[in-house]
């Protein structure tokens, strides 16, 4: 294994595992699907690196096919997410747990304490159109 190949494999596997962790921990449906796409990015990196190493195009062809399938899955995922959102009005995965062993209690997540709302953004005060700014006139005059 050349060092180059090795390095790419390292990055590929890190991306894959990061995606997996995201899949396991994030509760937003869309993020969950995106995390799978990140896992696929790790795989794509592996494939391309191996393809370059072997000087064959199989790896790239494989990646293209994988992209296609990922696109299919993304399309279905978004359609599904929209349909589900229409029913529950939330993107939380946790609301979908009515199907389970009847004896097992449903998992209730504690809601984290409300974070303090971010301070209202400070926008530069602009002069309304059509009005002539007053106070700056003197300064401008001074500059000029």
């Amino acid at each position, binding site marked *: 294994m050349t060092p180059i190949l090795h390095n790419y494999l390292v990055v590929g596997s890190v991306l894959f595992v990061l995606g997996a962790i995201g899949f396991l921990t994030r509760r937003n449906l869309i993020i969950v699907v995106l995390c799978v796409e990140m*896992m696929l990015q790790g*795989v794509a990196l592996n494939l391309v690196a191996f393809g370059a190493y*072997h000087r064959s195009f199989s790896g790239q062809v*494989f990646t293209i096919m994988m992209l296609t*399938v990922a696109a299919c899955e993304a399309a279905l995922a978004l359609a599904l997410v929209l349909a589900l959102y229409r029913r529950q009005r939330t993107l939380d995965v946790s609301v*979908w*747990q009515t199907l389970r062993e009847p004896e097992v209690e449903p998992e209730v997540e504690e809601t984290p304490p409300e974070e303090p709302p971010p301070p209202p953004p400070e926008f530069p005060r602009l002069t309304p159109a059509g009005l002539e700014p007053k106070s700056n006139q003197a300064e401008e005059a001074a500059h000029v």
Partner: protein
Amino acid sequence: MDSQIAEQLVGSLKLLVPEAILIAAACVLFVGGTIYRCRTTWSVSALIALALAFLAWWWGPAADARPPSVGLVAFTPLASFVSVLSLGAVAVVVLSAWNQVPESFTAEFHACLLVIAAGTMLVGAANDLLLLFLALEMISIPTYVVLYLPRRDARNQEAALKYFLLSVFASAIFLFGVSYLYGLAGTTNLTALSVALPIQRDSGFDLLLGLALVLVLAGLSFRVAAVPFHFYAPDVYQGTVPVCAGLLAAIPKVAGFVGILVVLNAALGLTSAESWFPQVRNVVTALCWILALASMTLGNLLALLQSDLRRLLAYSSIAHAGYVLAGVGAASASSGSGGQEAVLFYLFIYAAMTLGAFAVLGMLNLAERPVEAVEDLAGLWQTRPVAALTMAVCLFSLTGLPPTAGFWAKLYIFLSAWATESVLYRVLAVALAVNAAVAAWYYVRLVAIMYLRPPGREVTIPSDRPGLVGAMICGVFVLAAFLFPGWLWSASRQAVPVPDPSVQAGLGWERAVARDR
């Protein structure tokens, strides 16, 4: 374009006619469904497409006269075996879905089923990791749609969501393993892989190959619902309509196991006398042992506790995945054990019996009289004798009792596990026997409820003839295959992927060179 490639393409096109027919028919259904909505029309067209595909397969070149595999697809006896299995299984699904799908989506539903059939056929024919991946996706992507279509209540949506998310996750794991396999061999072609891999003689290589195979196995284990990749099965089966549950229990399981066999054959040469990577093979054997034991035990134990029919059958399907995995492990433990043919045989029988059971549930599960809890089957014998009889046959077959083919299927797995001559696998064989005895407990409970309980409530049940026909086909098949198991057995034995002798000759020489060095 190179003439050689063109020739090869044209040559393989001739053999891809069945798949082409199915996909073309699917396109027709997709388009037609937007214009004309009629349950019967589209169901019949789907059946006709399946029949045409079968005829094309039948009139295609004979299995032994087919050209040897070179490209993406290999026209091996395995491909033929899986083709027949997939066409038959999907035909039964079409029949039992007849009245289960809202009329407005019939065309789309059946088109997806046709694509699934084509995908399953391609899994058997795949001679390239890329094609294997695409074929598996050809099963799962339409499955997502199929799962969603029949009903739109929250439970069905939840089932579709769970299956989708976990399936995509499993796909990613599978792909990661595949990328390593490709890297190790330098080719995605499975035949080439089986030649390129064995000439590697390096210690670190074993480890990478082991990891790659475990990842691939894990990805495929999701499709077959083996522990610990099984969690989705009970929830999804419970949430969706019975016909989709039957589809999920049969088709992905077949595809997953065929995929496992194909990959393991290419990477480890299960049938070759000499082990290519004895250590890796040992690891795979051990993993299969663990998975098999865990799946069958957990599946059966949890099935004992269920009061929901589809959950119960889901756990039963997990247990069956365990039995089949025991066969896979046996094939991996020793090349002469006959594990692979046992697996293929089991898959054929399993598809029939599980589809039959779900078809009966499907035909009973109408809006006026939902059949969900076990108790809902009470007195079926009096209200629907034929359905009850079919269900009983399928359940007895799932138990593995003699007048049904399930007996042979279990017996072959058992024998192959025993024939490995490894203590571990003999223990597994005993565990299998014990598990089968435990499983009798809940299957017989169902039969007892159907036959030995008075019917709960009187509801006029509209007759669902196509569903009943589908179920009866399965039931009759299960009985017939018990009486005449010979043809199926020899078919599954022929279907075991054997290494091309010419490839093996080249391989022997390669090995000699590798040893000399």
